[in-house]
């Protein structure tokens, strides 16, 4: 057991998989010799050499297209898109090519690849380098979508993603890179499609993802201490496949549900989950499901403004408290 940062967990995860399987290659912009703009891939170039760890030009379409071509012919590429906002310039691969090739070819083509990307706000980068775009990927049939919140999950879910036979979009949160967590020694492999109860509770279920998980946990601690409200916090971890069983099971116990979403309001992942709960667990509920999201606006750059719009522990505490006392 060792304490590791989320950033170093990314490096360890990729190294673990590259050591295991010589068909795993890794490329992206500034990822090899420079070690990544977020220093998430430092040392991989030195460890695995220039054939397996490569710097690309600033060509997001070429990066994702090449990953797909390599994947469909037998390699297991990990491709980095530096900021998830840049998905917009290579969205053809994410929306049209990776997820549809197997279906359109009636199962002839395969696409086992991982696209990893830095997602989310908190760095004061403004509206084009801070977005949470996991819902862009979630809406497309044929993709798998994960977003770890801890160093241990970074390694376990990355290993699961690399070993998965489908295209996986792997959202790292840039505001979590410096956070630390306990990580067991040896190989770590998780499974895609499993949520995790990170704090058991009986009065309400709080569903969170990535950076919103530590905020939800912080809020749950305060809700218990200050208001005697005992919240269960679930780290959703995987949007596709979605662990609806864990979510519905929790709602059946607590009878109240809150989502904490960093994405802008419309069509956020919580909307889909709330609709599933409404369809399948309506009579388990003692009150309306509540979504706590970033408002439907582009993100501002200024720290004081950005802090006002992302869901915070304060806002979660206040929303849960008010809803449960209504």
């Amino acid at each position, binding site marked *: 057991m060792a304490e590791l940062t989320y950033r170093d967990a990314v490096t360890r995860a990729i190294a673990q998989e590259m050591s295991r399987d010589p068909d795993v*290659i890794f490329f992206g912009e500034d990822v090899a010799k420079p070690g990544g703009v977020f220093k998430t891939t430092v040392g991989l170039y030195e460890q695995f050499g220039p*054939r397996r760890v*490569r710097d*690309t*030009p600033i*060509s997001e*379409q*070429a*990066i*994702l*297209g*090449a*990953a*797909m*071509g*390599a*994947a*469909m*012919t*037998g*390699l297991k*590429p990990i491709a980095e898109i530096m900021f998830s906002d840049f998905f917009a310039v290579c969205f*053809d*691969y994410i929306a*049209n*090519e990776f997820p549809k*090739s*197997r*279906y*359109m*070819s*009636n*199962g*002839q*083509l*395969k696409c*086992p690849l991982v696209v990893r990307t830095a997602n989310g706000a908190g760095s004061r980068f403004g509206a084009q380098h801070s977005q949470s775009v996991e819902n862009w990927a979630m809406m497309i*049939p*044929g993709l*798998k979508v994960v977003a770890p919140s801890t160093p241990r999950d970074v390694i376990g879910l990355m290993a699961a993603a690399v070993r*998965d*036979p*489908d295209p996986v979009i792997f959202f790292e949160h840039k505001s979590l890179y410096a956070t630390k967590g306990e990580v067991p020694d040896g190989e770590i492999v998780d499974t895609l*499609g499993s949520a995790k109860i990170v704090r058991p509770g009986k009065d309400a279920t709080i569903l969170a993802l990535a950076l919103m998980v530590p905020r939800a946990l912080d809020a749950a601690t305060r809700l218990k201490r200050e208001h005697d409200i005992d919240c269960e916090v679930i780290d959703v971890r995987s949007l*596709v*496949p*979605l*662990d*609806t*069983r864990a979510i519905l099971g929790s709602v059946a116990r607590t009878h109240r549900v809150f989502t904490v979403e960093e994405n802008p309001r419309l069509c956020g992942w919580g909307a889909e989950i709330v609709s*599933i709960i409404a369809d399948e667990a309506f009579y388990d509920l003692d009150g309306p499901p509540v979504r706590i999201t970033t408002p439907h606006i582009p993100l501002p750059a200024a720290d004081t403004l950005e802090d006002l719009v992302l869901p915070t522990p304060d806002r979660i505490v206040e929303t849960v408290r008010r809803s449960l006392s209504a």
Partner: protein
Amino acid sequence: MAKKKNRAPTTALANAGPNDDIGEETRRRLYEVQVIIREAEQRAFDLFLQNLVKGTSHLSLGQEAIAAGFAVAMRPSDLSFCTYRGHAHTLARGVPIEKVLGELMQRDNGLMRGKGGSMHLTSVEHGVMGSYAIIGAHLPIACGAALRAQYKGADDVSVCFFGDGTTNIGAFHEALNFAAVWKLPVVFVCENNLYMEYTPIGEVTAVAHPAADRASAYGLERIVIDGNDADAVYRVAQTAFARARAGEGPSLIECLTYRHSGHSRADPAKYRPEGELERWKERDPIKIYRERLIQFGFEETAIAAIEANVRRMVEDATATCKAAAPPAVEILFSDVYADGGWAWRN
């Protein structure tokens, strides 16, 4: 600055003689493949008029020499990446006509059992790694397949076919740079049929030769060939493939040709200047190649036998497809994910 107009090139019938580099059997095959494409595409058009080909279709009538020349020069392990105008390249790799027509007719016997349609023909067992309907998308994908070959030390070449219109989209430029920087064994083949969909390519492109005039930007040789002469195509393919297999990197080849039909089935091609089609039909690749065979001593009866055999194959394929059932409903939810199903939740 006045731009040079693309004109039908005139190629003298050189190299005729006993020391020919192509040889009798290859020539026979080059002709046969062109005739297969011509007859199958013509049949696809006829079936469309009978409302038996549904959806859209983009025919390669008039462009057969390019598909034939490259495919005949390929090894079985080489990979083809096509556009939505991909029937020709699929047939050229040896995919049975009934599989292609079946997919166009959206029957259960089609290449992808009706799940892909005319624009996405794929036959991995024949090296046809997909037909891509988003302009430019497959150039980077071909780079990735070539990257795998380079990484694994395999000697296969990825061959990527696209139209003149593709040269103005970003993925074209990203892929060429990427392939050149990494010296990937990929051959980019631009089929310049003078029209990007409905608009003349010259009206929307800064240079006269949309592919070849961009080659120097990526350190590549400027190559323009007569795309209606299967021998010229075959020769340039051999050179490019040898270069790729030797680790010398990508090639970009612009093949001048002409589309006899409209862009898609919805397009009657009224935008063409009067007489243009007729002038190009004088340079019909199949007409050229038939004369070539005679010149090289093929008997008229041998040529007629090739043609009759292909026509019979097309008739048989048509009958098979007409009798085939529509796709089985149970495939609707199959192969979304690698486990064979479509489940996104538990």
